[in-house]
């Protein structure tokens, strides 16, 4: 079986799984108690006369297509979604496509920066601790990474706010930008970057802890291999042995974790977004659920489904790139 055929097979699998999950998701959300139209119309219920409210309610139900049988609703939703119409948000009273951009940008920006910080610190740290295994430096890093990895994010967040925003007011407590700032260009970017320091720091703490240990373990395994001894015996420089021969072979587990991290770029963090008031996808998803805003919730869930399925394929492809021994047909 060639690479093209393998990819075709995976594509068919993705489509199949996508539709199965979409049916399950749709059924689950539709079975949740709570009336999205009632929530959408909110205070109108007690500011309008009952007959007028009922007329408005019926009209809204019809306009949203909620008066139709569930299979018809599913087909309409799926048909619309496949043509780029993600539906109407009952919570924001706008098209989903118009409201999802800003939180997605906020989430991606925060996650990308965190990922860069984590990889810049964690990979070299993992390699160094593997090379200096059982030394004082390694043990210190091991303790700190365990602490960073195990501390709940909200504890780290509160600690960071208390230390760096309240006790020593270096960074802002929350938000995306300074209230009333009219700046554009570089000034606006720097202001946002300043607001990002604490959330990135908090997210990076657990990320650095996890990935450092992951890289260290992978490197220790590789450094035990015979071909590393051979490379050293050949008189290669230690840096070449570590970064060219050892690290390249330790990349497979790192690729796995990197791919899952890239997929999670679009997944918001409820804790971080709530504590730092960073309006992102995590909070949007929870708010959507609490408000029974199914158009928003289902659109986001299906987006994550596609991302996860596609991510697995991308991971397979990445394996072949970092390790020529891996073949897709295998």
């Amino acid at each position, binding site marked *: 079986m060639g690479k093209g055929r393998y990819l075709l097979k995976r594509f068919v699998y993705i489509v199949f799984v996508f539709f199965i999950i979409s049916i399950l998701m749709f059924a689950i959300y539709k079975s949740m108690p709570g009336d999205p139209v*009632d929530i959408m119309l909110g205070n*109108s219920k007690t500011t309008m006369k009952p007959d*007028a409210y009922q007329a408005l309610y019926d009209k809204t139900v019809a306009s949203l297509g909620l008066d139709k049988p569930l299979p018809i609703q599913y087909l309409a939703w799926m048909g619309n979604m496949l043509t780029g119409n993600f539906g109407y948000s009952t919570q924001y009273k706008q098209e989903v496509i118009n409201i999802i951009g800003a939180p997605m940008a906020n989430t991606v920006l925060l996650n990308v920066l965190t990922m860069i910080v984590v990889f810049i610190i964690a990979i070299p740290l993992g390699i160094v601790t593997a090379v200096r295994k059982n030394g004082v430096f390694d043990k210190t890093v091991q*303790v700190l990474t365990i602490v960073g990895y195990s501390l709940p994010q909200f504890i780290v967040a509160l600690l960071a706010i208390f230390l760096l925003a309240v006790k020593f007011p270096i960074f802002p407590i929350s*938000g995306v*930008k300074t209230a009333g700032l009219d700046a554009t260009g570089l000034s606006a970017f720097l202001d946002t970057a300043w607001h990002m320091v604490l959330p990135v720091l908090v997210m990076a703490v657990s990320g650095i802890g996890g990935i450092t240990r992951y890289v260290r373990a992978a490197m220790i395994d590789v450094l035990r291999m015979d071909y590393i001894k051979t490379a050293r015996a050949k008189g290669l420089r230690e840096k070449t042995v570590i970064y060219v021969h050892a690290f390249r072979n330790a990349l497979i587990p790192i690729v796995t974790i990197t791919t899952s991290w890239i997929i999670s770029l679009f997944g918001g963090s409820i804790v971080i977004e709530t504590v730092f008031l960073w*309006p992102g996808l995590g909070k949007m998803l929870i708010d959507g659920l609490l408000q029974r805003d199914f158009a928003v919730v289902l659109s986001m869930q299906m987006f994550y489904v596609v991302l996860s399925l596609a991510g697995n394929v991308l991971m397979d492809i990445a394996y072949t790139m970092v390790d020529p021994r891996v073949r897709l047909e295998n």
Partner: protein
Amino acid sequence: MQKKKLLSLLLAGATVLSLAACGQQTVTTNPSASNTPAASPSQSQGTEAVKPTEPTGQLVIGTTTDLDNDFYDASFNNNATNYKLYDLLHGYGTIVSDIEGDWVYDPTVVASHEEVENEDGTKTYTVTINDGLVWSDGTPITAKDYVFQLLLESSPEMNAVDGYPSQAGYSLVGYQDYFAGNTKNFAGVHLVDDMTYSVTVQAEELPYHYDITYASAAPRPMHVIAPGCDVVDAPEGAMITGDFTADLLMETINNSTTGYRYNPTVTCGPYLFQSYDIASRQGVLVVNPNYAGDYRGVKPLIEKIIIKTVKSDTMMNELASGSVDLLFQCSGADTINAGLDLVEAGEAMDNTFYRNGYGKVQFDCSQFPTDSENVRKAIAYCLDRNEFARQYSGGYASVVHSYYGLAQWEYQESQDWIEQNLNTYEKNIDMAKQLLEEDGWTLNADGTPYSGTGTRYKEVDGELKPLVIEWCNTSNNPVSELLATMLPESMTEAGMELRATTTDFPTMQAAITHTGDKIYNMYNLATGFALASSPWYYFSTDPVWMQGGYNSNWIADEELAAAAEALKAIPYDDTETWLTTWQNFIAIWNDKLPDIPLYSDEYYDFYSPKLHDWYSTAVWEWSRAVLDAWVEA
């Protein structure tokens, strides 16, 4: 060894700091909330700042509710923060509530007004507006803009814009035909001349205590919302001429970039919309130089207002750091004590007032066994409400005994009367037992006389039924948690079984409205009173008002309904009759007990010392108070 010690110190330090960051503040002794809060018009003692004569400076207002990108009115978006922005952006309503919460004609807007009771039982209000009012773009405001609002916001065309309710003229003659699209003329609305309009109220809507509000209209910029259209009058009523279609409104109002809903460029309130940043959810308003003033002629002195989201856990730190200047309607002991610490340290000022509402246990009076008055009262006798209020609020709340809030003038006028005439339902398990005995809960599960322990039973239609109270509450709710601590033991002692179900708000709402899978006996909620408080709807025995969400207690009690209905027809200026009728109503309510009122909060505003002349109350909220305030340059 040295390095190990250093590491230990670091870890110990981190632990101490995390405890400090997460720990609760020490609760201080609070002033009794039974006293009138010391709300003062100005608390700018100790400053030598000079009040500016022109708008200057900026005020950053922190809100715990995100601002949404929607600035038309509450029919499109009823977010609490957006609601206040409508006040600031859209002005010149003909009827406004004054600083005491009374409805009045706005003399800045209204030159004259006349009310005529017609022979057919209808009533016509004719309003002439003042000359010289202008939109923010300089266009003069005329009566056409007021008539346009009534026609626009009652029209089927507007109803097609995202399901806008189009209810503005609901009480007026000819509304049904106009809204249904049967006619282009709205019979109950007339453009009398360039500066005068009239509205005629249907006979079946009268008499009505708040009938002054029928004369209410607010201008909408016709030249922006319906360019090329005009308002003309005819004997059959006023109408909009020109290409007035739903498609036009979808573009001028609903376009997600340029629509008036999202980008209200031409307004007439004290402030103008400058920007909304969707990424940070911040809104910026700037002062409207063309604004003629509120009903007192007061114009804003703060040049720019910024609305910023804050989190209740850290908002006092935001105030201390200067990233916000005002936090309004703060409640709860932890938050208030943290704010008062800032006040004590001279880093903030405070303003306090009572809430116009209360937290409650709400009964469903259509469900067995809470359809029984005695059972509801027995539950009330099982709860120490004073202790509940103290524990819940840390002292910053008072117990109320009937359908009123501490901010209502009727309450303030009736405090002695309430003490003498209302049952305060002090905790009394013996009384609860007696009420249950009287109600027939006198049996054990096997039909033998009640032994004194366990759940009581009662024979209903030949069947033995247990005294089980199904209670629905929401998660992460301190009231639910406190009730779960204080109620079950006492109820068990009285012979009742309390079964709690914790869920989310939409599920509970579905249960309350009888549209969910299950209906419960009681819920814990909070309620607020509108300025036009209308209890005759909320306790009507007509099923329409129950299904419509008004009578959410589902109580069908003729005596209570009659007591509430008696208020409806009292003329607005007959305060004496209103007060005695209101007292009768709350006394009957107190006896029927459709809710157990739990607490009415004392709210605090905390603000930066740079803000002066800050005075707000439950009926004079921050969006009104900001006009009197000023900031140091």
